């Protein structure tokens, strides 16, 4: 096997200093104990809220529990990965994902006019879940092998890498996932040191194009949809219903909340999607602002821990991947929590580790598995 660049980097004189090493057991298992603890606390918290949101449906709780067992297993398995191998194989992972996305558009199955699933006979899954991992990995691999800050050509190339799956997922159509996956890629671009002139330049271009788009290109019904997205409360019985009810649930909870299982908005079915996307409204109603602050604090700690891991990583692939996983996680939290409170347009984004969901939980914890792999990379350095 040929010597890779990372092998070389590892042998640099100052790259192998090992200060406080983590406890031997966790390092050998390639587990970051702090991150694991935080995730488990959020998971338990989430299960309690879900139990309440589902109307104390034990069957649903058990299903979610099983998904968590699978997801944590996936996390441990992922944590054992050789990151350099992952880096080398990233392009194949990415290409398989793209092919499956095309397959979804051609032979996919789904409901309500959206095709999101591929059926392999015995199992159905969403290829977009693969891209949630594949895009950050691919981007991290791409930039780790390039001179940074990235050149314009690299930037343009990376945009192709990001936007290809973005557009394919948008066509399913699944706007929320498309945006989030694109964001996870763009985060890598930003963390790789994208020059400010590109950042501000593109922001200015987007800003400048809004006016002509609105007045000359978009049709009335499209404008209407954008308006509804931006101000759902204008559509009181349609999209606005959810937001009005979720704000009512949150607001009526007050500081201490109505008590677990006692939320009237959620328990009496006024709150839609109460065990999936809008679950934080249940929590806000039943556990109040104190509950919300506690959950947000836990999320903040996870983000902080993830960024520390990213900061402490000793090669660019690990850094970029860790930062992307961590910040994407934050974006999930921010979009969901903000959307339910009526700050952001309603796009289908679950609340990480709390909302009911199967594959999305597995994907999420797989991402954290990568983060743990980075934290405990034996060819790298440990972080404390």
């Amino acid at each position, binding site marked *: 096997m040929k010597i890779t660049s990372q092998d070389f980097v590892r042998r640099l004189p100052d790259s192998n200093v090992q200060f406080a090493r983590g406890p031997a057991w966790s390092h050998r298992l390639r587990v970051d104990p702090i991150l694991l603890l935080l995730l488990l606390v959020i998971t338990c918290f989430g299960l309690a809220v879900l139990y309440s949101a589902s109307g104390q449906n034990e069957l649903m709780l058990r299903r979610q529990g099983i998904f968590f067992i699978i997801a944590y297993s996936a996390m441990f398995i992922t944590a054992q990965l050789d990151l350099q191998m992952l880096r080398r194989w990233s392009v194949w992972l990415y290409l398989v994902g793209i092919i499956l996305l095309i397959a979804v558009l051609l032979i996919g199955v789904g409901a309500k006019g959206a095709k999101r699933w591929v059926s392999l006979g015995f199992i159905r899954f969403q290829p977009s879940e693969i891209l949630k991992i594949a895009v950050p990995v691919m981007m991290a691999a791409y930039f780790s092998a390039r001179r940074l800050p990235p050149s314009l050509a690299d930037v343009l190339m990376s945009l192709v890498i990001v936007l290809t799956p973005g557009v394919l997922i948008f066509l399913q159509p699944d706007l929320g996932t498309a945006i989030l996956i694109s964001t996870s890629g763009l985060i890598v671009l930003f*963390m790789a040191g994208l020059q400010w002139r590109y950042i501000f330049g593109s922001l200015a271009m987007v800003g400048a194009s809004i006016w002509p788009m609105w007045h000359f290109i978009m049709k009335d019904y499209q404008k209407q949809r954008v308006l509804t997205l931006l101000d759902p409360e204008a559509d009181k019985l349609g999209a606005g219903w959810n937001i009005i009810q979720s704000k009512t649930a*949150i607001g009526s909870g007050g500081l201490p909340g109505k008590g677990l299982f006692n939320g009237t908005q959620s328990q009496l079915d006024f709150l839609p999607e109460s065990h999936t996307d809008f679950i934080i409204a249940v929590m806000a109603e039943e556990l109040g602002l104190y509950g919300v602050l506690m959950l947000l604090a836990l999320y903040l700690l996870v983000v902080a821990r993830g960024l520390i891991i990213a900061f402490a990583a000793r090669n660019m692939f690990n850094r970029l991947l860790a930062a992307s996983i961590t*910040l994407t996680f934050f974006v999930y939290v921010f979009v969901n929590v903000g959307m339910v409170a009526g700050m952001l347009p309603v796009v289908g984004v679950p609340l990480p580790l709390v909302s009911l969901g199967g594959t999305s939980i597995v994907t999420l914890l797989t991402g954290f598995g990568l983060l743990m792999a980075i934290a405990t990379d034996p060819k790298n350095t440990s972080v404390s």
Partner: protein
Amino acid sequence: MNWAGKDFHEFKDHHQEARVFGYRVALAFLLVLVMFGLLVARYYKLQVVDHQDYVTRSDNNRIQLRPIPPNRGLIYDNHGELLADNRPSFTLSVVKERAGDLEKTIAQLSELVSIDERDVENFYKRLHQRRRPFEAVPLRYRLSEEEISRFSVNEFQFEGVEIEAQLMRYYPQAALFAHTLGYVGRINEHELSSFDEDTYRRYSGTHSIGKIGLEKFYESILLGEVGSENIETNAHGRVLRTLNTRDPEPGADLHLFLDVRLQQVAVKELDGRRGAVVAIDVNTGGVLAMVSAPSYDPNLFVSGISYADYRALNESRDLPLFNRAIQGQYPPGSTIKPVLGLAGLANGVVNFQTRISDPGYYQLETDERFYRDWKKGGHGTRVNLRQALMESCDVYFYDMAFRMGVDRMHAFGIQFGLGSKTAIDIPSERSGIWPSREWKRKTRGMHWFPGDSINVSIGQGDVLTTPLQLAVMTATIASRGRHLAPRLVRSIGDTETELQVVDEVQVNDIYWDYVISAMEGTVHDPRGTAYRVGRGAKYRSAGKTGTAQVVGIAQDAEYDSDTMDERHWDHALYIGFAPVENPQIALAVIVENGEHGGSAAGPIARKMFDEYLAPPSEAVQ
């Protein structure tokens, strides 16, 4: 992975890259903190600053104030027999908010329950009326047991469709009291728009309202006071629990003077002829019987009468919807004579010795016109008031009226309630006409002629009375001048209604004796026009027959029923009271186109006296 390793040979400044990355991580973390801050601020605003607003909103979501309709007061006859009842009725209702596609739902329902176009039409009409959210809208009333069971088996298929049990008005005597009781019907758009806020509140939960008759007159008493309950519902409108309840107060019951048996006798004796009967308790003014024939079944109106049924009733030549007893204005004919006889005596126009000669006609000196007596050849040469009343001599009254003049006749007559409403406690009463000079000038723009007085003296010409007015007049004679207001309701709940004296007619007792005795003679003297009415009775009664022309007979023409349309035949009238020595019951009977008061109307009066004074159950003992 050639592309990944390609740039490896180029110079890569790892320290510089790590430093830039470090800045970016710090910047990202700062951004994360700011955004978390935004979230916290947002939740603080919702949960602390605007908390109360959202508590209110949340309570409005789940708590609904639901009205509990009061039970409508019942109506009983004089012996406690139920005339208006509330019976459970099963209604198929739809909650629009839960039902989804209404047209589809109705189409599916019509396979189980018979639903015609009119039901559907009315359903949409009700749906668009003022309505509370999640209020069930009735689609079909009075489901049969079979329909209920058919629906119940399939109920699970119909979200938002339910069977509601409601109390609905039911009139067990059906057509017997239709005109007096009236009926309730669905509150219509017009009534709803006339409600003020408080009335609207009182009717929340109540779907029907008294439309005519007692049901309308005593609406506010029968209605009761609405109750309410706070109920908690879920988002689908399903009631989860009742938080608190304020019980409704049922409407007060009405106890009437009306007597089912007396009413039945009157209807039976009318025997399908058109007409009206009113009987009054002389001592109280209570209406014992009030019949208008033909009648109709008021139950048809309770849940909304079908268009075809209504048209049949409304367009019938016999006017079944018309309450003849209070709205029918008939010339009283000779039944007016006892009052005029009293007027003559009281005004000194005639006395007991006054006698006239009756050649069969009467003529004014100023006029060519012949005023005929009903009896060809007249009643003889020495007719006094007693004979004139007993035999109903017209010429005696022509002469007396001519000499008395309209002013004194008018002034005397109004003391008996002629020409004005009796203020009976049901709506739509008419006042009849008791003409005067002023009345004629106002309505006809003409002077009063002596001939007018002559027409009035036999209850023809412009005189019009309702059967109720005649009964009140008769009761006033029976009680020797105590004119009581007639009333249907004896007590509201436990409170007796008050006896109301309208007038005391001041006439010398010997005149009362004389006229009443003459009326007794009418019934019991073989020469009397109503001799057959009194024959064989165990009590003495007093009466007066009457015949009223429906169409004018030309001066030189003869009345001949054989050549005339039956509907142009004379109306037969009878007034009377019994027993003479201690009057209990006074009544007025009119049989339209019955021709002769004595033969057509009198026997009805006799049967009613028999029933009232010697009820069969007591007679057996």
